[in-house]
């Protein structure tokens, strides 16, 4: 139907995007918790009650207490901020790095591309959690170290994605058209290529944010995360491992919190993808 104008821009057409609706609500909920969680928490997340250790859920402690008598519910709430902000900031930084590297390599090609792609491919051969573990062990246990580790492990795959998308867009006639009107390459890259790659990048970043939560919590679980007594979820899981047999409820709350947050990022990303391109299959 080459000659039939699309009646309306497609973005106004989709009203049944369950993923986007669900993902953004859940994500909104987590962001709300990240900001207001500490205020809502019934207890100070570091407050200990040595006479109420490893207690199960009760009216006083909704999700029970941990091995030194801290209120798990309060810790989960207080931990939301860590996890959400580490995920978002690392993904944002990785996005900036990945876009810079990938677009320069993809657009300008030639020697620049060979050098940059060489480095990217090299880093891609290191499994990303291994890279993150290695970097975390150097960067040290802190929110900053964790962010650096996750960021660094996400830049290579993002750069590769951006590069291939940029190469694809570079072949488009509208880029050729911009060349023929005398536009500079930097301007073409910034005004025509990157804006058209943006949706792909945003979708990928959103999905990466879910991955960042997973990798961050895995590092926390392995003891490479934040410093105690910060209530980071992965670290909480790592600490509750010892009590798996006596207090299995300890692993439930952080595990479910992580899963829900990942779910939120993933479905939000899927929803965005459906939103921008309903024909793309996941």
């Amino acid at each position, binding site marked *: *139907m*080459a*000659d*039939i*104008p699309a*009646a309306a821009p497609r973005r106004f*057409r*989709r009203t*049944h995007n369950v993923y986007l609706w669900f993902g953004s609500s859940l994500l909104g909920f987590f962001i709300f918790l990240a900001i207001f969680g500490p205020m809502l928490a019934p207890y100070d997340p570091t407050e200990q009650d040595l006479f109420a250790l490893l207690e199960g859920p009760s009216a006083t402690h909704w999700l029970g207490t941990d091995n030194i008598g801290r209120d798990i519910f309060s810790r989960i709430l207080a931990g939301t901020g860590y996890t959400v902000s580490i995920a978002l900031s690392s993904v944002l930084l990785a996005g900036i790095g990945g876009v810079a590297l990938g677009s320069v390599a993809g657009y300008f090609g030639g020697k620049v591309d060979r050098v940059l792609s060489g480095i990217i491919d090299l880093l891609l051969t290191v499994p990303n959690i291994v890279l993150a573990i290695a970097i975390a062990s150097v960067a040290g246990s802190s929110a900053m170290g964790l962010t650096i580790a996750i960021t660094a492990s996400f830049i290579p795959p993002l750069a590769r994605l951006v590069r291939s998308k940029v190469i694809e867009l570079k072949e488009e006639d509208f880029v050729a058209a911009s060349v023929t009107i005398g536009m500079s390459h930097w301007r073409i890259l910034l005004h025509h290529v990157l804006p058209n790659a943006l949706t792909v990048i945003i979708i990928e970043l959103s999905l990466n944010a879910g991955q960042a939560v997973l990798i961050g919590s895995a590092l926390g679980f392995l003891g490479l995360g934040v410093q105690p007594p910060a209530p980071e979820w992965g670290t909480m899981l790592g600490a509750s491992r010892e009590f798996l047999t006596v207090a299995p409820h300890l692993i439930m709350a952080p595990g479910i919190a992580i899963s829900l947050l990942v779910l939120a990022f993933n479905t939000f990303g899927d929803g965005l993808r459906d939103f921008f391109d309903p024909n793309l299959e996941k």
Partner: protein
Amino acid sequence: MSNVLAVEGLTVNLTTQDRSFDVLSDISLTVAQGEILALVGESGSGKSMTALSIMGLLPDPVAAVTSGAIYFDGIDLARADETTMRKLRGNRIGLIFQEPMTSLNPTMRVGPQVAEVLELHKGLKAHEARARVEGIFALVRIPDPKSRYDNYPHQMSGGMRQRVMIAIALACDPDLLIADEPTTALDVTTQSQILDTLRDLQAELGKATILITHDLAVVAETANRVAVMYAGRIVEQTSTEQLFATPRHPYTVGLLHAIPRDEAMPGEGRGRLVEIPGSVPALWNLPKGCAFAPRCSRATQQCQDSRPSLVDIQPGHQVACWHPVEAEI
């Protein structure tokens, strides 16, 4: 000559996420044995939909026949169940598609892709089928059929692949052949070769054939009869000679004039082509009256208010127009 296929008042509805509309409205046509009927029209006119309706290959559940019938050998294909249709497809109705580059399975050798039809419908064993397939390859002018049998599609040129598609369609000696834009994706020299083969096969085998194309020149060189489609309807239907000699529908006239012609003045003058103003309306947003009225220089209030139906204006020449062009050109 008996009719192999008779389509009567076929209407097909398409439902998308946003809207529901008819892609085909009240289509009636017949194809007789030994006859090539051309369905011609621009993109979106519904010609391919017609082919898919006959084959029962409408995208389910998005598109569905809402009224009308498609009679083939006493069966109403519009109402036949999937089992019946499967027995007909590839067996008694052969279909050739537009894109020979993608219509073959890229991971399967071409011979078995033809043999598959024979094994399915004729119960042949693989080794029996092979001999037959090689024969059919020869029939459709594929040189060196024996070695070509084991080629993968990517090892063949577009023209050869289209011949393989024709071989698939002809393998079971069908009663009806539907060729959907069989040469559109091909270069002009290749197109010429394929059209030549189709004409030869028609002369040899005398199938009832529906040729779907947007190219009136292809119609002129190939078809006996022509149905011109516009916005989901047939607007004119007659013999090829009649259509080119005395087109009656303003749209047909416009199409014929829009082609840069042999007979028209050579280059330097660069006179204007006759253009049809405007563009094809969206099917979900058709005007109340004649769909062509907004682009038609002859349109009157009547054309805008009510839709003309397809009527005989002379024997064997049907036009759907309130103000047909006079029989001269």
